[in-house]
């Protein structure tokens, strides 16, 4: 009885090991079934998903115009204090005063990419860019001003 159990254990052990080895061997010989992406080498073909959240950017059109009204909804929506908007008063042609953004400061190092600012924006002024590889040597480089120098607000955006 003991001897029978002894040998059946050995048989079962070898069988279970071989079952596992068979699977490993299958993938060893079927290279086309392997899904590994060799990351730094595939940079040219690597495409991130459309909704991937990389960083917040402010798109400008060809006339260097953005859509940001300076309403600060994104600043309130941000849980981390990532966004800081500095506004200025601009005197329009008809003499009226209007609030405009001076600089839209975005701290990439504080940002958790939660998308709440994008959802909060009433005029679609900011979007998420599909960039990655954001590591830099100096922390100061992660503080970005999103509006271009001398940019203006687009006509008709309120």
């Amino acid at each position, binding site marked *: 009885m003991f001897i029978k159990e002894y040998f059946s254990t050995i048989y079962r*052990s070898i069988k*279970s090991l071989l079952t*596992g080895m068979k699977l490993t061997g299958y993938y060893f010989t079927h290279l086309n079934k392997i899904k590994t992406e060799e990351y730094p080498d595939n940079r040219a073909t690597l495409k991130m*998903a459309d909704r991937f959240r990389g960083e917040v950017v402010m798109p400008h059109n060809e006339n260097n115009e953005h859509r940001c009204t300076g309403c600060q909804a994104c600043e309130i929506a941000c849980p981390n204090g990532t966004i800081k908007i500095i506004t200025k008063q601009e005197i329009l042609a008809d003499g009226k005063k209007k609030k405009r953004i001076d600089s839209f400061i975005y701290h990439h190092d504080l940002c958790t*990419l939660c998308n709440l600012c994008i*959802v909060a924006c009433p005029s679609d002024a900011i979007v998420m860019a599909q960039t990655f590889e954001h590591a830099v040597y100096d922390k100061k480089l992660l503080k970005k001003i999103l509006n271009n120098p001398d940019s203006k607000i687009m006509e008709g955006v309120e």
Partner: protein
Amino acid sequence: MKLLGDDEISEDGEFIINMGPQHPSTHGVLHLKIWLNGETIIKVQPNLGYIHRSIEKMSESLSYRNFIFATSRMDYLSAHINNLACALTVEQGLEVEIPERAQVIRIILSELTRLASHQLWWGSTGLDLGAVSPFFYGMRERESILEIMEETCGARLTMNFMVPGGIMADIHPDFQRKTKAILSQIKTNIKEYDDLLTGNVIFEERTKGVGIISKEDAISFGMSGPCARASGVSCDIRKWFPYSGYEKVQFEEILETSGDCYGRYMVRMREMLQSVSIIEQLIDNIPEGEIQAKTKNVIKLPKGEFYQKVETARGELGVYLVSDGAASPYRIKYRSPNFSNLFALPQMSKGAKIGDLVAIMSTLDLIIPDIDR
């Protein structure tokens, strides 16, 4: 047997070792102080606080829309389910009707999260017990699920996709096709998992009869999730207290009676198939309609207390929220599954060998940021 004091070393071979906070098998910064007699464990004492980020206190200064994002950082492998728990708590106070479409998408995403979490656990359990290849097989399916998440939610781990009232955006046009593809892939691949690890003799020897916890102990330690179900405690929140439309889907609560490491392993392996069947029931009949109920721009909850519990991949997550009528919560308390599960570890590992401790810990499936918060 006399226990040693903190700094004592006795002459008959008893001594103290520290496992962690950087031990690779502890899956994070868990510090275990272990009293040993030779190779046998006398006592284990978990030492916490290495990754405390004060998420609960932080939430008190954030608005009801904002505090949800931080819960993705608690149990990062079930981020969707954590977000869902918070969203449900706020909705309880708002008393809004969540659109059918949002509810179904919420369940599908939660179950996909559970699948991804269990696959990572399967891989890392193999890795902890000395089998390196399962890690790569587990990661393979998880990667496909994370690609779906990335396409629909925009992020792979910290999605922040559930908002009070519904979901943040509609699903990606490819979502249904890709999910169906991954489901059929998972069903064939679970057979590969069984070939590779479940029937493996070394794995069985190291897990069967190791780290046993009885049903009574599991209840009194407040264990939940797959760990408690392996001891025969019926505690699936999805069955007992259905939320977000789980009452409409058919699934089986997996129970094992052995209470050892192998039992916990088998519960999770069988749970994966249940998750697959839940998604299969829903993926073809996602109802059309709105994805968000109308909520005010600044959410204010009425004065009172709200509690919502959900079943994450590791057990019962409870969110207790006290509101004083302001725009941010007065107090938030999270009842996290890993905290209760961890404190059953000293009981499980009493008398076990030091090598078994790694097996017990890996089948407990601890996520340390969830313990500390």
